[in-house]
């Protein structure tokens, strides 16, 4: 399954835009991601393991917050997870 890494976090994945992981749930996939790239963990999760709220996670087109099982939603090989952090550039400077 592919996970799309947003630009601000790519410095923690060696510049990779897409990372392939296996995992039967969203949480499982994220756990694999942070095991492979541990520096991602504090940027994505709070100390008690919750996804930080300036980071949004989409399973295909859907925000996982609105899926019935949220982070425990089951995933398939063909699914894609996208991490969307907030960006603010509008370039006045």
């Amino acid at each position, binding site marked *: 399954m592919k996970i799309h890494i*947003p*630009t*601000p976090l790519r*410095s923690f994945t060696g510049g990779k835009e897409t990372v392939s992981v296996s995992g039967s749930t969203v949480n499982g996939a994220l756990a694999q991601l942070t095991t492979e790239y541990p520096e991602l963990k504090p*940027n994505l999760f709070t100390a008690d393991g919750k996804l*930080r*709220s*300036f980071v*949004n996670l*989409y399973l295909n*087109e*859907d*925000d996982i*917050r*609105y899926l019935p099982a949220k982070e425990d939603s089951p995933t398939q090989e063909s699914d894609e997870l*996208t991490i*969307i*952090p*907030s*960006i*603010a*550039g*509008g*370039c*006045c*400077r």
Partner: protein
Amino acid sequence: MATATEEVTLPKLSNDEIARYSRHLILPEVGMEGQQKLKAAKVLCVGTGGLGAPLALYLAAAGVGTLGLVDFDTVDASNLQRQIIHSTATVGKLKVDSAEIMLKGLNPYMNVVKHNTMLTSANALEIFKDYDIIADGTDNFQTRYLVNDACVLTGKPNAYGSIFRFEGQASVFATKEGPCYRCLYPEPPPPGLVPSCAEGGVLGILPGLVGVIQATEVIKLILGIGDTLVGRLLLVDALGMSFRTLKLRKNPDCPACGTHPTVTELIDYDQFCGIEKPAAVGPLEVAQNKAVAEAPVVDGIPQVTVETLKKKLDAKEDVFVLDVREPHEYPIANLGAPLIPVGSLASRVAELAEHKNDEVIVHCRSGARSQKAALILKEAGFTNVSNLAGGILAWADKIDPSMPKY
């Protein structure tokens, strides 16, 4: 904006205007009435930079009757790589004045209202009340949240766009039925995670792409045509030239626009974003790396001037200079020093072990990243680390004027 139940007289169009907007008038989706709605519309562009530039220009071209511009900045040469509303001739002018020249040149029939001020909690509601639609083209998180909350409180839709390097986002927030910015991002990122354009860089065309998407959404909102981006987040990847849409939902628990809102007035957004109030010395915006105050010692790191460094180098003193910029900056200008980017310094400190007790002077472009790096070295046990205040920019300014500044 006029609703179906209000009786509003739409402004007439002169023969000259009819000739000008002919290509709109012959579109069934616009027509005479649509063009009149555009003339009646009042849109506020917050920011006349990368996003604001194409946004304002296309709204002017389309015949939006009143365009408000909010910007406190002046035009700088480095803006011209993307802020196409300004020109070489207006470098140094206030951005709102510079923008007005181009806008009136394009469309003399429109009103340009200039707000040469920073948007703050103290003035936002007052400024917003005279407009129908707000287009957010700002460049920092505090203002994003401020604009959002002010839009929700005043009931004005927010045509949102944002960019970073090669990627952009666009949506329409703060309509009655749709989500607001806080539904998507209840919490701002910690200061330091997302660099500003001045630090991260941005492909010049990117705000052009996203700014025109915002302008398109504004026009659709005014005319009431098409499917707007309400409830959708458009993700633009300029390098891959891919466009994706993600579903956005209104969060019933949203503190701003939910069923039980707790945001009933504008707050201190600096505090909300974890940003320290700007000091008297230093830039007003949030930078990933805080500008270093002008003082001989900051956070325990002595600040060395470029003049002092020059003296030491001329006297062949035993000084180890370390450059902590990114590799792609080196060819632009450098002091010949070895380079370890600040982001990798902590893990590569062993490479500098032989200099642990030497006099080490760290430099970057402007002195902010090198301050961070100096602290890392101090933490790692280096006994004599200083920061080159003002960085290589100060060197180009005061020591070697032939060196390019960037």
